[in-house]
């Protein structure tokens, strides 16, 4: 009986305390409700600013978090998303002890306007070519890109790469082939073209035909080996070979004619595309590559080589209407390399030209090192000062279409990775990027 009374007493006391507690809860807390909206809500790209509008109710204090890190305490905020990815945005709304939170996901994507690829030659007797995905605007550099897309290595040393109608064409040597990938995905789906392709050097597209300059063998022993292969881009087969002695290197289409810079003859070949008839424009030196201007005329690099020495080196200018060699602009030491030696800037006001110059070393000796000369198109003259000089292992020059920076490819060794030195237009070094072995040119697609 005593036990039963005691239990009753305890229950009554507890009930009384409970009523007291209920009285305290009944002090009315505000009904805080966290809420936010953001614009734009879709199609957000890297670098975009997103506005976050606070629609919370009954709140006096706000905390904004992005990926669990506090970013602001303002009511409404804006965030600039510098990188692509998914961001978890949380708003914590408070009013005294009243707290509420809400979370939403913001998807930031990246669709660059241009994509650039650096072609790394590799080594003729060793490593095959590799590709470096390169987008300096967003500090994106990815070596081994071809392999990462195709899960296999390239099997050739690429002499030249070219974008045409949404396809990248590569002139592969050792093994000799013209192979191609989708310019958007970089996927290769078919074997390269090997029949009638021997030592391909360069190419240019015209309608459904890809013209490929081929050396055809050891051109230095017999200049008659070389030819132009016509590749039908519908069937991806060589449909004709146009015999062209003299080691055609760079090609260009202008005024309905195919121009071929001859590396073993002091002339530029002009091929009438209608009938394949070849005529020649005499040049003061052997030539290698072209740059076409708005009037469809051609700047051509003029070289002095061991087999064809000349003291008239530099750039030449060919009028393609009259097919005459109109002028030459001297530059001693212009590169004889089979790499990207000419790079026009975006408005073709300057042509960056690979060359070499003598540089005095710390020990007083003079050595020949790489440099980049600048040809000013308006004044038709090379600038007195080199853009850069004293670069050992210079291996190509390119202009980044996105940033306008001048990229100098460097490859001192045939077995070690090379690098790209990015210079601003004023000549100051911006940054260096490690690439694959022997970078020599850049390919850009819109």
């Amino acid at each position, binding site marked *: 009986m005593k036990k039963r009374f005691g239990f009753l007493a305890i229950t009554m006391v507890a009930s009384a305390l409970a009523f007291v507690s209920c009285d305290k809860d009944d002090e009315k807390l505000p009904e805080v409700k966290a809420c936010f909206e953001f614009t734009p809500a879709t199609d957000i790209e890297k670098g975009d600013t997103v506005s976050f509008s606070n629609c919370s109710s009954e709140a006096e204090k706000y905390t904004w978090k992005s990926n669990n890190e506090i970013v602001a305490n303002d009511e409404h905020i804006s965030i600039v998303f510098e990188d692509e990815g998914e961001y978890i945005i949380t708003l914590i709304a408070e009013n005294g002890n009243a707290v509420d939170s809400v979370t939403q996901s913001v998807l930031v994507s990246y669709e660059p306007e241009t994509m650039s690829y650096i072609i790394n030659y590799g080594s003729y007797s060793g490593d095959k070519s590799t590709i470096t995905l390169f987008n300096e605007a967003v500090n994106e550099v990815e070596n081994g890109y071809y392999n990462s897309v195709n899960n296999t290595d390239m*099997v050739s040393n690429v002499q030249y790469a070219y974008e045409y109608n949404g396809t990248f064409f590569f002139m592969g040597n050792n093994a000799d082939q013209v192979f191609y990938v989708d310019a958007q995905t970089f996927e290769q789906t078919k074997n390269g073209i090997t029949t009638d392709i021997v030592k391909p050097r360069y190419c240019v597209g015209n309608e459904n035909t890809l013209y490929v300059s081929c050396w055809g063998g050891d051109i230095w022993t017999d200049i008659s080996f070389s030819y132009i292969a016509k590749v039908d881009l519908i069937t991806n087969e060589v449909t004709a070979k146009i015999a062209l002695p003299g080691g055609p290197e760079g090609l260009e289409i202008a005024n309905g004619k195919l121009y071929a810079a001859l590396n073993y003859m002091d002339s530029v070949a002009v091929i009438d595309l209608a009938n394949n008839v070849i005529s020649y424009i005499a040049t003061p030196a052997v030539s290698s590559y072209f740059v076409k201007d708005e009037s469809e005329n051609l700047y051509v690099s003029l070289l002095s080589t061991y087999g064809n020495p000349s003291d008239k080196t530099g750039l030449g200018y060919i009028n393609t209407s009259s097919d005459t060699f109109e002028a030459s602009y001297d530059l001693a030491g212009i590169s004889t390399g089979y790499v990207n030696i000419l790079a026009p800037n975006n408005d073709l006001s300057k042509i960056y030209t690979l060359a070499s110059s003598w540089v005095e070393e710390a020990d007083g000796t003079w050595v020949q090192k790489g440099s980049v000369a600048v040809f000013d198109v308006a004044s038709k003259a090379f600038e007195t000062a080199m853009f850069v000089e004293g670069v050992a292992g210079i291996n190509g020059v390119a202009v980044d279409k996105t940033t306008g920076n001048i990229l100098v490819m460097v490859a001192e060794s045939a*077995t070690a990775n090379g690098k790209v030195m990015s210079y601003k237009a004023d000549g100051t070094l911006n940054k260096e990027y490690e690439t694959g072995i022997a970078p020599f040119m850049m390919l850009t697609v819109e």
Partner: protein
Amino acid sequence: MIFIETNFIGGLVGSGCKFFMLLAKQLKDVRKVTHLLLTLRGLQLPRRVALALLVSLSISLNAQYTNDTVHIDEVVISSVNISKFQAGAKIEKIPTKQFEVAKDGNLEQLISRYTPIGVKSMAGSFSTIRFRGTSPDHTSINFGGININSMTLGHSNISNVPMFLFDELGMQFGSSSAVNGSGSIGGAIHLGLKNYWVKGFKTEMRMAIGSFGEQLYGTKLFYGNGKFEGVTRAYWYRKENNFSFYNPTYNFESKGAYGEDVQRNASIDNKGLLQEFNFLFKSRVLFKSKIWIENNQHLIQQNMQRNVMNPDYKETYEDHHLRIWTTFENRRHRIKYNIGSGYVYDNGIHNETTNKIATHRMLADANSEYDLTSNTSFKIGVKQVHIIPDVYTYDSALHHENRTDLYFSYHQIILRKIKLTANLRKGYVTNYTVPFTPAFGLSYRVYSGRAAVLKFNANFSRSYRVPTFNDRFWGTQGKPHLPPEEGLNYELGVEYSYCYDVLSGNIKANVFYLDVENWILWKNGGSGWVPESEPKVKSKGIEIVSDFSFFLSDFEINPGFNFSYNPVVPEKTTGDTAVLGRQLEYVPLHGASVFLSANYKSLNVGIDYSYRGEQYTNQKYEDILPEVGLFNVSAGYSYKINEYNKIALRVLVNNILNIDYQSTWDFPMPRRNFRLSITYNFK
């Protein structure tokens, strides 16, 4: 009859024991012994006298072995004691049995099979050697007084050195420029010919056939009267080289690797003639001449990608060599002298080009050796080389280059336990300066008992290499004043030789440190590729060599092994993306070979295993050649038809586990292959 050659005495420690065992073996058969005639230096003696002499000689040899180290471990190649003035240096001679097994092949095959020396090979058509991680240019390959390495390229294609033409092979590990001149930074190879001084005529004819269209036809003719000797050796080697391999090149049509493939357009066609005329005026006064003509052609092996994608692609390479060396030597008196002269013509033709890359060399060497006492001797000499390049890219003003070397060698034995040597060499090159090159060696017999000898060796040697003609004069890129490559080699070794009852053997361990400065590499300069001499490379390591012989009645078993641990690390080079502090490309950190041969009467069987650790192929951490171990077996049988006629058969099976492997990245090597050879000897 048996033939005892004087250099038998000079075999490795343990050979004395081996000789004893051989002798015991002979003595067991009394009938044999009673018919035994000793032919020594042209003397034919009655059997009793011969037997008495033989026994006394064996005692004398044994006495020499136990009491005096002077003649122990001397390595004699072409009758030249190349170790006499090089105490403490590691000099090895390929054992006769191994040499015999490799005789149908080339130098690359022999080295790959029996030594841990690095070799980079392209399926038997082109191979280069890498002693202790140094470059192919750092090993001299010596034929008489000629270093056969190309003056333009700096090295030799050791696939084009046929073992059939030679009788013996010596290998020197480490620097030896003080003795061998420019180029011997990492090692030296000595191609040896023996003198037989036949009376009358004897001949050897050899034919071998093997997998992938391999054929060797060779003949050796020996004729003379004991004073005059003519030796004609000729061979023709051909191999289609159309072996199968797995080709991993990706086929985008079939969505997989091309898979099984056949090597195309990699055939080899080598021919050679080696003619000797030798005169023995009197004992130890002789004139020797040798003319070696080689015409080697091969289709350059293409990488596996081109092999499958451009199957008709062919690229030829042809070598023409003429090497002549003559010597007159008089070693009868305390003042000995040797006068040699020679001529070398090398011409390499790529893809039938008419652009010439050839050199002519005229050589002369004179030296005199003086034995001040039985323990003290020295040698002085002068070597002159006149080089005329005929290379299409060289400046026409470059007519010739002269190289003169003055050298001095000193040899001292102290208390019959210590051998000291010193070598000094100074070279003079037209418009070029080469460093003074000293070398010092010590050999100390720590313990010498009836059944064992323990020795300690130490050697220090400076070395150099004059840059090749291409390095200095090629087109506009050559740098005439490129500094010479220089090496410093430190060597410590311990050697234990034993002879217990029926067992004898050797074990040698060497540690070395080799520092090479001004290592020349061609780099992309700014206007094309140019030679640079900035790199510095350190090579160090441990090498262990062991072999032993076990005799039991008519059985003889010879096991052995080689092991090398060789970190070779570039410490300085040009280019800020170059890899430093990591193992050099195409140099395995570990190499080993194990071999076992067994002989029973005229039957010989052997098994060997060679191992190469993984190798970098570039200055990246990809495209790494995996480790590879190859088992090979051989069996030989010789049958004596009668007193004058003998026939021998030998079969070799290489790579018996049928392993796909590469020695050069992207270039396949053959799977299992065999070779069968028949050798007929008359007299």
